[in-house]
């Protein structure tokens, strides 16, 4: 038991109050109280407080029926939540792996680039190993090959064209020769009949053309005359209006000039010396 410099501490005092000190300690505390009656009074007050507080009654309560399910259920491992979670994750992974296998999925990450690819891997040209000179040589070679192929194709085309022209010319020559031969064999009468037939046909065509042309020209001329007369009439009306406007403007100007003249005369008369003298 610990004691303060001036007496026992709170734990000793409270043990004394509840009668939980052994005889030796109890004697020490009581001796302390004899020397310090104020402390004893204080403890008696605490005892009285304890007595007063003991008047708090217990509340009556009936224990409710508690239904506790204490049967330890033996849950198979595969029915436990954790197993199901793990199985679900594993199944998901398996599904992903199978799908990836079937689709030839490949996931690469390099130089900050994530690449997901499906199907067979495409062979990429090794562009990294070529220099500018190589590329130029490749272009030159390709151009040369193209030029050679073009020349060959051009030569072939030219030969084919020559053959075709030659064949065509030969064919035309034969036809002309045939025609000339036919013409030379035709009789004088046949030629005359042919020419007279041509003349008759030309004459009929010319006649029809002239007739059609004459009727159209007549209609056109009539329309032109009507339009021209309308134009003249309109023009005349406009001219008359213009003349009338001009006359009225001249008349108006004349009136204004007249008024101004009268005003000037009036001012001259009013400012003459006689009028001034008479005013004095």
């Amino acid at each position, binding site marked *: 038991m610990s004691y303060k410099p001036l007496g026992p501490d709170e734990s000793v005092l*409270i043990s004394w109050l509840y009668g939980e000190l052994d005889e030796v300690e109890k004697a020490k505390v009581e001796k302390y109280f004899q020397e310090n009656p104020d402390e004893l009074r204080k403890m008696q007050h605490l005892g009285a407080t304890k007595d*007063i507080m003991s008047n708090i*009654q217990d509340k009556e309560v009936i224990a409710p029926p508690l239904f506790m399910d204490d049967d330890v259920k033996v849950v198979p491992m595969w029915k436990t939540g954790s197993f199901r979670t793990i199985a679900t994750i594993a199944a998901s992974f398996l599904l992903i792996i199978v799908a990836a296998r079937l689709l030839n999925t490949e996931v690469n990450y390099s130089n900050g680039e994530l690449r997901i690819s499906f199907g067979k891997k495409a062979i990429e040209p090794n562009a990294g190993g070529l220099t500018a000179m190589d590329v130029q040589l490749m272009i030159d070679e390709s151009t040369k090959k193209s030029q050679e192929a073009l020349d060959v194709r051009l030569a072939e085309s030219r030969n084919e064209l020559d053959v075709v022209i030659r064949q065509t010319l030969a064919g035309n020559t034969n036809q002309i020769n045939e025609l000339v031969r036919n013409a030379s064999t035709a009789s004088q009468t046949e030629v005359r009949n042919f020419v007279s037939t041509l003349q008759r046909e030309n004459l009929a065509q010319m006649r029809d053309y002239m007739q059609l042309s004459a009727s159209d020209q007549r209609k056109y001329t009539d329309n032109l005359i009507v339009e021209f007369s309308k134009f003249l009439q309109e023009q005349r009306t406009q001219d008359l209006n213009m003349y009338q406007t001009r006359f009225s403007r001249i008349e108006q100007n004349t009136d204004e000039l007249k008024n101004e003249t009268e005003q000037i005369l009036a001012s001259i008369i009013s400012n003459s010396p006689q009028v001034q003298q008479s005013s004095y």
Partner: protein
Amino acid sequence: MMHSDALIARAREGDKNAQGKLVQLWYKRIYNFSYKFFFDHDMAMEVSQKTFISMHKNIAHLNELSRFRSWMYTIAVNYCREELRKNKSRRALSLSDLHSGEREESFRWEESGARHENPERQLRQSELSDILQKCLMELSEEQREVVIMKEYEGLKFREIAEALNISENTVKSRMYYGLDGLKKILERNSITKETIGYEL
């Protein structure tokens, strides 16, 4: 003693009847401890329920049968603290706002043996109990739980120290200052042995 080691041992082994018997034996004590801690019937019921559910779940892990009593109060006081924390934001407990428990008084009175006593005296006793309970509520949480355990539940200082997981000296110190605080509260409310004797 309200229980025997044999009963606790059976309960620990999963005997439902023994566990039920423990509930019947201990329910009133745990309820009253919680009620005095909160001065609120609903919260006391809540804590009691939780305490016995916890007892049912964890009694198998109780190593020393002799520590059953302090173990039960450990569970109860932990739930009391938890409940207090949860309700602090919802309710501002003050002396004037405290629930007097009158709602539950009538049926409890019917069930109690006190109904055979003088009803007028019983009413005055009940009122005095509520007044003193309000005084108790003015103590700090730490002092209140020690005072209740010692004064009303009759635990030894050692058992309280075990239940609260603090030293015995701390328990005694809290008890001392708790009683000292109550003395001042009673003086402030002019409650003395004489006035109580006059009232009763």
